[in-house]
């Protein structure tokens, strides 16, 4: 360490300081290189109290991108792989699964490429080769045997179009194209 033995330095407060700034420009990188570089600066020295020492070296050596520490957090690899895969599915773009009653497999679409319900419905119609009908607040989707619904964050099944597009984008977890008969309860004033 730079010779300062005060409590504040021991705490390595700089490393934990909350800052404004883009991710990747902060000092998180020090945790990766810390194991290799600074601790060994004076290994036999009694004053060496570890990671704080030689922190100034780290900035030059630190990789540009946000780096992960090996084995941290201590989560099992098999668990990590499963869950990470699922999460990235929904975070790059806004991919949600779309199912249609009676169809054996699901599709996936990226909600973020659409500007509103009209575009989304057109895309669904073309993907599943069907007509969905016209939306009305009172009667839901008339003029077709299909009704588009979605599952929101609370797990409830909602009719597509009832809430403003932005609200829908942030709460939609999954889309479901229901056959008219099953969709009876949705959007008909209930």
């Amino acid at each position: 360490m730079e010779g300062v033995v005060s409590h504040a330095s021991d705490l390595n407060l700089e490393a934990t300081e909350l800052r404004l700034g883009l991710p990747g420009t902060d000092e998180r990188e020090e945790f990766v290189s810390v194991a290799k570089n600074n601790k060994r600066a004076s290994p036999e020295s009694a004053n060496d109290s570890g990671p704080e020492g030689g922190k100034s070296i780290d900035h030059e050596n630190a990789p540009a991108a946000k780096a992960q520490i090996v084995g941290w957090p201590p989560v099992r690899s098999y668990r990590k792989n499963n869950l990470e895969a699922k999460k990235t599915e929904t975070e790059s773009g806004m991919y949600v699964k779309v199912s249609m009653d009676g169809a054996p497999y699901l599709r996936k679409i990226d909600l973020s490429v659409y500007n509103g319900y009209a575009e989304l419905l057109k895309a669904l119609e073309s993907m599943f080769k069907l007509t969905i009908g016209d939306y009305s607040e009172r009667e839901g989707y008339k003029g077709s045997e299909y009704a588009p619904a979605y599952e929101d964050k609370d797990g409830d099944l909602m009719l597509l179009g009832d809430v403003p597009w932005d609200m829908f984008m942030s709460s939609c977890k999954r889309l479901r194209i229901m056959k008219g008969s099953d969709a009876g309860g949705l959007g008909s004033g209930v």
Partner: protein
Amino acid sequence: MDPDPKKSKFLPSNLLNSNGSSHPQSLFPDEVLEKVLSLIDSHKDRNSVSLVCKDWYNAERWTRSNLFIGNCYSVSPEIVARRFPKIKSVRLKGKPRFSDFDMLPRDWGANVHSWLVMFAKAYPFLEELRLKRMTVSDQSMELLAKSFPHFRALSLSSCDGFTDDGLKAITTHCGNLTELDIRDSVTVDVGGGWLSCFPEDFSSLEILNFSSLNSEVSFEALEKLVSRCRSLRVLKVNESITLDQLQRLLVHAPLLTELGTGSFLQELTPRQYEDIESAFGNSKNLQVLSGLWDATSFYLPVLYGACSGLTFLNLSDAVLQSGELAKLLAHCPNLRRLWVIDTVEDKGLEAVGSSCPLLEELRVFPVDPYDLDHRHGVSEMGFLAVSRGCRKLRYVLYFCRRMTNAAVVTIVQNCPDFTHFRLCIMNPRQPDYLTNETMDEAFGAVAKTCTKLRRLSVSGLLTDTTFEYIGKYAKNLETLSVAFAGSSDRGMQCVLEGCPKLRKLEIRDCPFGNAALLSGLKKYEMMRSLWMSSCNLTMKGCRLLAREMPRLNVEVIKDKGSDEIQADKVYVYRSVAGPRQDAPPVVLTL
């Protein structure tokens, strides 16, 4: 046991004659002693028994049938075979726990083969083998399958090294198999063909767990297997099994007590939905439920009929939101153990607090461990909510992104009976986010208040003060995990000096150096093992330890690019077998 309690304290000296055989005037003829000792199961008790005198040592070794070895390198197969002639069931553990987090080279060791070779010779009547963190090759599995005609149970937790071929050998040849459990073992190279190799008339299976298998199995073969095995009580399938397939399995196995489902997302017709709902409704004996990949609120309700008897709900593969969890928990009043993913957030944990008064164990896993965004996951609020509603909590594993000292103090006041307290604040060295202080007081409160504490994992910004507290108060502590904590050697010294029951100490990225390492010289022989990585140890210090303590194995792994002086990863463990012969070149045995 002994009708005269006074006599049992001091054995007459005529029992302790030099050749170790029992004297005709001995109080306990061999047959009686052996009969009595054969009733003792606990290996800890047995170890104590064996220390009483030579007669008892011998009687104990002849009657021990369950072998437990916590570190496969602490003893050799030959020594074991010489001492215990009649072993029927074996539990073996191999690699240090940090191997789970990719901190060891792949070929580090802990290969079970040499043990199996010895077992094949010495224990032809072997029935059960349970391994944890060991490497098991196909060759080993074949040896296992062909050497033990009475073999019944194979359990592999966190193991690796085998493929479909190895498992095929087991399923083909072990005609009396009651248990096949590969749990969370690494199955990257494992196909699903082994399931189809059970003979047509094979029907003895009681436990089948292939939940971590990455490949598909033949559903036809599985269905036939399940319908033949009338005693099946534990079935944990993998994600490839669909809901409607699950329904058919459940119909064949209404007596299941533990179920691991497959994927819980599938387009179901209303009829199929009803069928699976009633299948769960008929599974009245379910106590443990897991799997549930992709489960959502739409499909979770099919479970409700089976939830009233549930004591353990493992949702660690189900990415649920708070509402979904709350609705599900409302049907599970008898839960003792709950594992969830942190997408349920604090709100979901509030539901845990209000719905699960009998809860004893909670584990919260992070959906994305590398997401440094502080807005997601759980915080101190969720943990507090659980502690208020679940006063019987004794085991917690909690991954979070922020915590406060005040919250932890309150939590342990609410739940003083913690035996396992594993708190992982995921950002290394993060202070109390409200006061910006260290988290010393939090863990001090844990050590002081939870007198039954046996296992502790610390995190956050910590100085030596934390370790002073631990050394002073945590007198029952057996396992301690430390990362990115402490200010000087003193921290580690406090723990080594203060915790009499310490058995496992694992440390990474802490400023502890040779002085700290060497302060535990005498202690390590009373412990199972010590792990220190990315600390301030040098080769010199490690060599000194190895020289002073010949009954300890001191192994060093150097990282790429490290200089001659640093000892990057150090693993120290007691052993009566001497240094191991199978270490890969990267592991230096000092």
